[in-house]
């Protein structure tokens, strides 16, 4: 069902599926083209279901790809290009949500779960230890054990 639906949803959108960047769009400078690809992979195609503009053939995605390349040609750094796109389309365009008050729980949530679990285990361990479950036998108990074993 998941992929099925992923495919279904993708299919309902106005596009076909092959990866997007067309030869005409590519920049002559290979290093700059590489940067453009990198940036594009982190920008969401706004009319698609969970696709980056690098993957989408939607016309809007193409416009954005061209925009990214235009900014790079104009001498922007990667950060400046991303800021420019975010200023235009909002944070929604970023596939990696920036850390902020509204995303704090998102970013530290997984670590919190892990630490809470680890802490719980540590507590459990200590409780067992203090209840005498984890320690070995003391001298008196050891003597008692040997006495019982001898009797057999």
């Amino acid at each position, binding site marked *: *069902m*998941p*992929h*099925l*639906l*992923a*495919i*279904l*949803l*993708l*299919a309902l959108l106005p596009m*076909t*599926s*092959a*990866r997007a*960047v*067309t*030869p005409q769009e*590519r920049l002559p400078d290979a290093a700059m083209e590489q940067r453009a690809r990198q940036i594009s992979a*982190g920008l*969401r195609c706004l009319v698609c*279901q*969970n*696709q*980056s503009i690098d*993957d989408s053939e939607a016309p809007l995605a193409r416009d954005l790809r061209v925009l990214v390349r235009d900014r790079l040609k104009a001498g922007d750094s990667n950060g400046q290009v991303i800021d420019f796109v975010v200023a235009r389309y*909002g*944070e*929604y*365009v*970023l*596939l*990696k*949500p920036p850390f902020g008050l*509204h*995303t704090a*729980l*998102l*970013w530290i*949530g*997984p*670590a919190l*779960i*892990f630490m809470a*679990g*680890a802490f719980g*285990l540590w507590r459990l*361990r200590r409780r*067992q230890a203090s209840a005498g*479950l*984890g320690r070995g036998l003391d001298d008196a108990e050891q003597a008692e054990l040997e006495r019982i074993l001898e009797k057999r």
Partner: protein
Amino acid sequence: MLAETAHFALAIALGLSLVQMVIPVWGVRRNDVALARVGEPAAIAVFILLAFAFGVLMHAYAVSDFSIRNVAENSHSAKPFIYKLTGTWGNHEGSMLLWVLILALFGALVAFSRKSLPDRLRAGTLAAQASVTVAFLLFILFTSNPFDRLNPAPPEGNDLNPILQDLGLAIHPPLLYIGYVGFSITYAFAVAALIDGRIDAVWARAVRPWTLCAWLFLTLGISMGSYWAYYELGWGGWWFWDPVENASLMPWLAGTALIHSTIVMEKRDALKVWTILLAILTFSLSLLGTFLVRSGVLTSVHTFATDPSRGLFILVILMVFIGGSLALFAWRAPLLRQGGLFAPVSREGALVVNNLFLAAACGAVFIGTLYPLALEGLTGAKISVGPPFFNATFLPLLVPLLLLLPFGQSMAWKRGDLLGTAQRLAAAVGVGLVAAVTILALTRGGPVAAPLGIGLGVFLVASAFWDLGERIVGRASGLGAIWSRAAGLPRSAYGTALAHAGVGVTVIGIAATAWATEDIAIMKPGDRLERGGSAIVMQQVFPRTGPNYRELVGRFTVEIDGRPRGTIDSMKRTFITRNNMQTTEAGIRTFGFSQLYVSLGEIQPDGSVGVRMYTKPLMLLIWLGSVIMALGGALSITDRRFRVAAPARARQPAPGPTPQPAE
């Protein structure tokens, strides 16, 4: 008439499920064996009724009966026959019917498994299972009737979404559903145990084959879905961190934790509360996945709010089952007494650590999938959570787990020895390191992650078999002794080694994707595109007609290291039956475990064609590894201890202390 009968069969199945849900519990209460056993024939009858209904729907698809709305909306008389059949579940109503059919199948299987289950547990489990069937039958009857008629019947159908007209639809959803729904059995077992207030190693042993079965099908389902998306979507990606994918990954992670925690419970009578909670959570995540996909909430919180009938129904089901079972858990779990003890450094301890990492990884996927929905619902702010987020949160939890995995597998039960385990694993660590360093040296300047990942994968494979080999050879001397030890080792030990090796194989495949290349060019016949040792030469571009589509075929000859290696056909299809919708049928050639992947892009005004060529080294290992994992699971199910009668019904005195199988 047949369709109406099938619709009626659904209604009767609903009635019988109610019987199956209520009467056995009452029977157990009153100590009335006859009443407690009513669940068994009821479960079998429900399955037969649903199988009949499903068969009728499939028949309607096979003969293109467009008087049934569902068929008219999703099929076409010119569609190839196999896709007519698979189209039965290529739509909402049909897939929900498949969902309950599998639910009923598992119920019937429990009813049949007399030998391996204590009576009270079987009665309670069937009742709990029936409650899920009731809920989903109500959902189908009230919101998603697959047998709705159209009058007058249209002369032709709308056809199935072209992307679904693929063998993948025959394989992926049934496998996935068996996995999803299979966890309903562990859920039912957990609920039955909570109601009964009794849970012990017998429970763990009874539940284990079911969990393994659901897990292995879910593994295959996810992996086949991934392969399908890989070749069908035309850009060679294999995992997209799409919410619908995450919806299947979450129960898989929880289920993986569950199959490991039941080991501890079976062995040491410990981790009871946690195992019960996991069993509940795993199926809850399956339900959540169904809700996410079926309600439309993913497309936008707002579409869900504007057309809530189906979504709301599933949401209520979700709340009743998750909330109800968790409440039951909170009420009854304190009654469960903790059992045996083990040192923190031991096989059991390692399995606890495994559960910690898997649960946190599952939590990361859960947060990443649901956070944007919650944030939008609460504040209206829209954010995207894409692959970069999951790579940053999921991988740091997964990599340590994989690094620790071999240590857990070769650690002694009860009280382990970290140093000794490390010494025994030294050879496997060495093999992994040599692999990583060698590849690093050979591919200098390339991506560093790939050799490291491959080293990790090699370490996993080597340690899985090293541990097995050591237990077989051990201190035994002579071939005969080795042979008898190999035969005496429980099947589950082989299953474990195989499954863990499968993880390693998948890791190698994933690591190698860092070496994948992509080339884009505009080509006309005669043009050549080359990368590394692989080259394609375009021969011709020609149109072709299929049963319900037209296609443009690009034919290429393939050269690997200068030698001709056959041809690749890559297509772009236009479905005349479906608004001229286009699909890309990538041309793929497999060389060993690597693939050459060619897909067609846009046709230029001068007749030349945009072509993308990808080289995908060792790509097939990703899916091969998951098939090996599933095989490991299957091998474990056949372990002797699951086939023997439940201890309560033992017919002969136990033959001494059986050598304890080590997972």
